[in-house]
């Protein structure tokens, strides 16, 4: 690197117009990205803040904005949590297969197939969710209602179409699987080979090696992978908007058709009939969603950076 520094110094000694213009352009582009992020916040605030305090008729059944957004926020989080509960163990399993279990010539195709899952557009997932998944799951919901109805989650009555929050959560789970797998795979495969071999040499089985050498090393990466998946699931619009037939308020009942929509899907399904006042309310809910996902992503990236710094030391 020393030579690069020298080169920079000579360049500085003889300033050239081209260099000056180019470096300012590059810096400008970087600043433009920061400005774009700030603009997102500013414009959502300008259009959304008036939506926070409208007369009560703008908020449907609720009397004020927070009463309006609370069920939506609950729906958003419930769908995302279902997605995480299903996707995280699967994603870690697949990531382990790719990084530690499968031989390379099997691992590469598996990784490719999971990436393929990430390439499918969300609207196609939605279409598949209604047409195939919801119909396949509907008899299962009836069974759950009859046999496990004593659990609050399966209180029923079972939805006749299968378009429930559980179906929406499962579709979301499939959609966030690739991102969690990709990041976990990356951190798993970065485990120092010496740690792994030391564990094996002490007589550990493969699973014990993974538990004692891989997981402790990859912990921060695994946590941030989950949080990035959470951020994705919170903001996903179309799959929820298409699959979930929303209605009703806050409820833990997963298999009936009385769950609130998510913030994003509520925007997508209501913006069309919106008067300017109603649109401001929707943008205000969008602002809430932006802040929530921003915080989740911020925390996830912060954990990653801290982990990287710890490893670098």
């Amino acid at each position: 690197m020393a030579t690069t520094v020298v080169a920079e110094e000579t360049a500085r000694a003889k300033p050239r117009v081209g260099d000056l213009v180019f470096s300012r352009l590059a810096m400008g582009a970087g600043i433009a990205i920061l400005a774009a992020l700030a603009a997102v916040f500013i414009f959502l605030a300008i259009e959304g803040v008036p939506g926070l305090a409208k007369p009560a008729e703008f908020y449907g059944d609720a009397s004020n904005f927070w009463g309006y957004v609370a069920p939506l926020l609950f729906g958003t989080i419930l769908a995302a949590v279902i997605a995480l509960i299903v996707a995280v163990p699967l994603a870690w399993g697949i990531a382990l297969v790719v990084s530690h279990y499968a031989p390379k010539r099997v691992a590469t195709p598996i990784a490719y197939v999971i990436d393929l899952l990430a390439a499918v557009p969300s609207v196609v997932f939605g279409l598949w969710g209604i047409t195939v998944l919801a119909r396949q799951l509907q008899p299962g919901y009836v069974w759950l209602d009859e046999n496990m109805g004593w659990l609050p989650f399966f209180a029923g009555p079972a939805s006749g179409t299968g378009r429930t929050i559980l179906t929406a959560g499962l579709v979301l789970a499939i959609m966030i699987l690739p991102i969690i797998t990709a990041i976990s795979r990356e951190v798993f495969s970065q485990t120092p080979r010496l740690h792994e071999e030391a564990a094996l040499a002490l007589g550990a089985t493969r699973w014990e090696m993974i538990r004692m050498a891989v997981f402790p090393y990859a912990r921060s990466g695994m946590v941030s992978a989950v949080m990035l998946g959470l951020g994705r699931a919170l903001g996903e619009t179309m799959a929820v908007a298409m699959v979930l037939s929303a209605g009703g308020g806050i409820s833990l009942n997963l298999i009936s058709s009385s769950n609130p929509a998510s913030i994003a899907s509520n925007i997508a399904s209501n913006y069309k009939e919106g008067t300017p006042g109603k649109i401001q309310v929707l943008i205000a809910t969008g602002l809430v969603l932006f802040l929530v996902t921003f915080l989740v992503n911020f925390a996830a990236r912060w954990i990653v950076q801290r982990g990287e710094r710890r490893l670098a030391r």
Partner: protein
Amino acid sequence: MSTVTPTRPVTGSLSLTAAKLPRFAPVLVAVVAAAAAALPVLFLGWGPIAWAILAGLVFLVALPLWARVVEGSRGATDRMVTGLVWAACAIAIVPLLSLLWTVVDRGLPAINTTFLTFSMYRTDLDQEVGIYHALIGTLLITLFAAIISVPIGIMAAIYLIEYGKGSRLARWITFLVDVMTGIPSIVAGLFAFALFILVFGPSTRVGIGGSVALALLMIPIVVRSTEEMLRLVPDELREASYALGVPKWRTIVKVVLPTALGGIVTGVTLAVARVVGETAPLLLIAGLTSRTNFNVFDGRMTTLPVLIFTQNANPGIAETPGGTPPGIEIAWGGALVLIVIVMLLNLVARTIGAIFAPKTGH
């Protein structure tokens, strides 16, 4: 490792290696499990899916049990986890296969030359309809999104790698670009929507608004992939150029960028593939129309994902009772076309990446 105590009682002759199941044990158990699961399935008349699930469960129980008897509890746990992680793979592939199969199965009958070259605009009810207007809309909006985001993304990456290394500004940009990858697409759409209705009035629906929203989603992907590629360019190349007295900016333009070009093109193509299927932002700001619109700066533009969404939501009435409504057919046909476009873009990106892979080895 506190639990590592010899779990097997030492028997007659001392052996240095612990007892292990034979190598063919998993295969044997798999065959037995498949056969055992076939019995109730045949008698009760269940389908092949139930058989697969049952066989998998029998396998996951039987192999650890056998291992427990021969190898002890640690071996059994290991066998069970191995079975579980492979099961996770199998479970994840099922929805993908189901989805691809459904899209091809339902979409293929809808596709013909009329479908690809006619718009939804018609002056009488018997006229043929197609998705041409949505194809053009998707193409133009994505093109303009690329025109906006690619220069900004590449220049920002150049700043991060070549100029700002280690500076506070560069660290913040890197961090916030990472955070930006997580912005929900609907929020990007709302941003473009808020911007355009603020500037051009409340009922504005225009294609370029969709491009702005998509560009916001593309920029972080372009920056990250370009950064990665620029980092792979060996410092020797830069130094050789400086030694010849070439200014830094010419070194970047003539040496660094051409070396990394393949990777950058791959990254941009993947970014395009990622946003080409976005629905939510375009639903908000680009609107819906049945005519073909070639001007992104004026009037509504339909895109393929929005068309799929709206056709599915309002499918119309089937010609024959009990048949498929025309909107559903169009939606599936559109879904197939969209998936083919996305897969092609991915394929192109990977091919370019493989051909122009930077030569880092010596």
